[in-house]
């Protein structure tokens, strides 16, 4: 191929990566106002140090690891230790440096402030 610019080629038939833990997609609410985007993510059982939020090339990756200390032998299970993983495409105009994440009661609250250039501005009409 003449326009092949990839530094590393990976064949599509590669062996499937082995994943030790299940990654499930947590439920998410997305809200917006003039100043910011607000994401609320349900991540029960996750702790502060298990949370990894990254914004790279317009992709917001939310990864939360659930730490489960079993207080004994399991008698009945409806959930298991898992990772929460969700990826979103983020519109341009989000300031990556100002992203703020808070975890409280198993709900992750992510605030993505818009940069000044994309905020709506009122134009004053001057007297001619």
């Amino acid at each position, binding site marked *: 191929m003449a326009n092949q610019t990839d530094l590393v080629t990976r064949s599509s038939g590669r062996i499937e990566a082995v994943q030790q833990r299940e990654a499930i997609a947590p439920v998410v609410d997305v809200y917006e106002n003039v100043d910011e985007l607000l994401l609320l993510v349900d991540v029960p059982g996750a702790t502060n140090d298990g949370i990894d939020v990254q914004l790279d090339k317009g992709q917001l990756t939310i990864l939360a690891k659930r730490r489960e200390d079993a207080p004994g032998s399991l008698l009945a299970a*409806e959930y298991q230790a898992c990772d929460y993983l969700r990826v979103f495409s983020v519109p341009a105009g989000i300031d990556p440096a100002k992203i703020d994440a808070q975890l409280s009661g198993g709900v992750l609250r992510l605030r993505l402030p818009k940069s000044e250039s994309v905020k709506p501005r009122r134009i004053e009409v001057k007297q001619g």
Partner: protein
Amino acid sequence: MFSRFGDTSRDFALLDEFRRRMDRVLEDIDPSWPANPAHARAHSSSAWPRVNLYDGGSNLVLKADVPGLSEKDVHVTLNESGVSISGERKVAPPEGYSAHRQERSSIGFSRSFTLPCKVNPEQTQASVKNGVLTVTLAKAPEAQPRQIAVQAH
């Protein structure tokens, strides 16, 4: 013309493999693709909250996923036959925001569980931490595990 049985099952194995690959492709495009069994389990609303039950030797421990709920939103009742948890989760959109996506839902819940042994109601404790409700139920004295000494004759 007959084909050996092994040939047929290989054909089906191929179909299976094809389905798995398609599922994986769709999952890559959209992680919420419902073919993912873990996803389906986590999102079916038939039983909320999800509960695990552990046997800790001298006690039983019930854990339930209740993200966004605090101690006062959850009620734990203990009776002769078992334990019940109930409560309500209210999800209200924050003031002044418009919604793009609302997957978290308000839900009222009530679940009852029959316990495998008698418990001591006085020594039952419940707490909520990181969105997980933990109910610790001390086993009744007669249900406690007892060490039996093996004697030599």
